[in-house]
């Protein structure tokens, strides 16, 4: 270990050809109050073992920098903050306590991820101070010119090392299911970047002249919180001399440390797909709440989604079905294709049998909602659910009451009506007119079969194109669906029960 650290500091890879030169540079940098990692950064030491918290003692010795008083692990945070001012370059963002905090909070959630991407949002003052240090280094004789390591990369490295050691996850900066977003804040230096704001755009109009609402809003936004890109651009455009005039080089220390403004741990959603059966009435597909009041007690989404949410330890879930049926309509046969999106799952490594156990539990408890072929699916497999909704046909069975019983001849006539497809013109049903556009939609019935049960009661089987309103076809919706079963039968008709017998869509994928 000692060998690699010494090599990194003043070996063949380094810009310093001897230990003395390295120490001189280190001393100059340390004199600014910079922390050990920032000294390494501005010496151009590449990210590696020298940056580990465990190697600190060794690095101190190699570079001849005294260990700052009170930086032992046993001191409380308040004592440390009182004894020393924070690093003027990184505002103590690179201090191991911050990386530890990130690792602790991550570990508390117990994500079962194998890798993660780290995103970092730094306070603007860090960029200003980085430049200030670079200007200082350029002017200093002891410090050699090198590509200084940025704070963002250094933080990702330090946090990554900590996470790898404590949680066993690898940091993959190109692609991963897990995102760790760290936003840092430092109130005390919040105005450091002010000298570097881009000049306000010249107004062609005299002040006091009315501006359009949108422009006035943009102006206010720009003055209030200039974006990072603007500040970075301004810094890049600024010459060293110009910079010196606006900001102290090296930068002055601040009293308090930067803190974590927000830490977001986000995992890509997990998808579970299958088909659901609704064996009883008065169950909506998703929770039916109007004006804060729940109008239907049970929902398919909650019955299937809750156990999945518990199993995957997710924050929330969404059920998406290939079409839906009214709350008072049952879904029978092989069920309706659907998927549940589990949002921010902590557990994704699940055996197929664990998913099947959710299905078995629903069957065992004689739940009114059950599933078939429940399984994990890839995100790409979800597209077919929505496509199928528009294009696939559905089979229905209905209990219908007719005012005038039909002759056998009439029954045969009606049954022949859809032999070549019966085209309906359906105006938007009265019961949904409040939330859909008023249109007349042509819908095709592919099959129609009416059979007498007894008295005024008939069983009607229908196969229809997706999107057809079956209840409205039966009673005619005040004459707004033509033809209707009522008009075909020449009498008043009403629908008493409706069941979906089949949704013909091939899902889940085999």
């Amino acid at each position: 270990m000692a060998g690699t650290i010494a090599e990194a500091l003043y070996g063949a890879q380094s810009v310093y050809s001897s230990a003395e030169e390295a120490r001189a540079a280190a001393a100059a940098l340390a004199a600014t109050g910079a922390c050990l990692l920032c000294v390494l950064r501005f010496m151009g030491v590449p990210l590696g073992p020298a940056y580990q918290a465990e190697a600190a003692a060794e690095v101190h010795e190699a570079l001849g920098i005294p260990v700052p008083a009170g930086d032992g692990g046993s001191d409380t945070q308040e004592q440390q903050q009182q004894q020393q001012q924070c690093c003027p370059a990184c505002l103590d963002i690179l201090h191991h306590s911050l990386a530890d905090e990130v690792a602790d909070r991550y570990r508390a959630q117990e994500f079962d991820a194998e890798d993660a991407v780290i995103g970092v949002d730094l306070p603007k003052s860090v960029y200003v101070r980085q430049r200030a240090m670079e200007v200082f280094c350029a002017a200093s004789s002891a410090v050699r010119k090198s590509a200084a390591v940025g704070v963002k990369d250094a933080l990702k490295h330090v946090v990554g090392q900590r996470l790898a050691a404590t949680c066993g996850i690898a940091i993959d900066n190109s692609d991963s299911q897990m995102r760790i977003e760290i936003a840092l804040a430092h109130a005390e230096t919040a105005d450091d970047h002010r000298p570097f704001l881009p000049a306000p755009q010249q107004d062609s109009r005299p002040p006091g002249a009315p501006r359009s609402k949108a422009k006035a809003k943009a102006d206010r936004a720009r003055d209030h919180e200039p974006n990072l890109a603007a500040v970075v651009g301004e810094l890049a455009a600024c010459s060293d001399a110009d910079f010196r005039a606006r900001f102290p080089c090296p930068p002055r220390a601040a009293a308090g440390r930067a803190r974590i403004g927000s830490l977001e741990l986000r995992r890509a959603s997990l998808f579970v797909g299958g088909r659901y059966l609704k064996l009883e009435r008065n169950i909506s597909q998703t929770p039916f709440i109007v004006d804060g009041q729940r109008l239907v007690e049970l929902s398919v989404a909650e019955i299937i989604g809750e156990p999945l949410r518990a199993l995957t330890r997710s924050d929330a879930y969404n059920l998406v079905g290939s079409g839906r049926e009214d709350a008072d309509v049952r879904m029978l046969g092989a069920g309706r294709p659907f998927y549940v999106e589990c949002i921010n799952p902590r557990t994704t490594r699940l055996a197929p049998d664990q998913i099947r156990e959710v299905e078995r539990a629903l069957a065992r408890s004689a739940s009114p909602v059950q599933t078939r072929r429940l399984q994990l699916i890839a995100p790409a497999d979800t597209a077919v659910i929505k496509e199928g909704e528009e294009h696939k046909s559905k089979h229905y069975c209905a209990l219908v009451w007719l005012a005038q019983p039909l002759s056998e001849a009439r029954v045969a006539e009606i049954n022949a009506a859809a032999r070549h497809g019966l085209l309906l013109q359906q105006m938007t049903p009265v019961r949904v007119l409040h939330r859909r556009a008023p249109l007349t939609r042509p819908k095709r019935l592919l099959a129609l079969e009416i059979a007498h049960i007894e008295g005024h009661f008939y069983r009607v089987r229908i196969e229809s194109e997706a999107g057809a309103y079956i209840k409205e076809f039966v009673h005619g919706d005040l004459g707004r669906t033509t033809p209707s079963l009522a008009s075909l039968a020449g009498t008043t008709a009403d629908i008493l029960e409706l069941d979906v017998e089949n949704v013909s869509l091939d899902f889940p994928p085999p």
Partner: protein
Amino acid sequence: MDNTADSPPITYDLGAYAALDQELQAAPERYLARYFSEHIYATATATDVASPELQYVRMAPNNSHPVHELAGSGGEVAIEFSEAVRKSVIRGKAKKQSLRVQPDTKLCTVRAQGREFAVRAAVRGTLVEWNTRLADDPLLLVRHPDQAFFAIVKPHTTTDDAAILAACKPSVV
């Protein structure tokens, strides 16, 4: 592909509908009462509740739409919708351009049996549909009273039954 094999065959318990069966046999058009609640809007001309020139206002359960129709009358009927109604623009999910109506807004005039009757909106709201089929074929009033509604109005208040139907009385059934 027999997808119905998975669940038991569909059976109906007709006994549960015995009472409904009797009610509907006596008066088939009462099926509408399963979907709408019924109220009567008393206009200036109808002082006698038993008069056949009664305007029914039917309200859907989620208070979405009153539908207006006339209790049956016989003989020749002429129907003329007001100009404002005929020229109204009804388009889009929110129906922003549609005609706004007050309870006493005259939607339509009916001339039958030598008398004239004004059909009024009865509620405050937005006109969502007017019955062009009835305009073309006024005798629908006689042949198919359940299809002979005049208009569909979306009320401005959607939560309070009493507020929406302030101008109406529940019908005596």
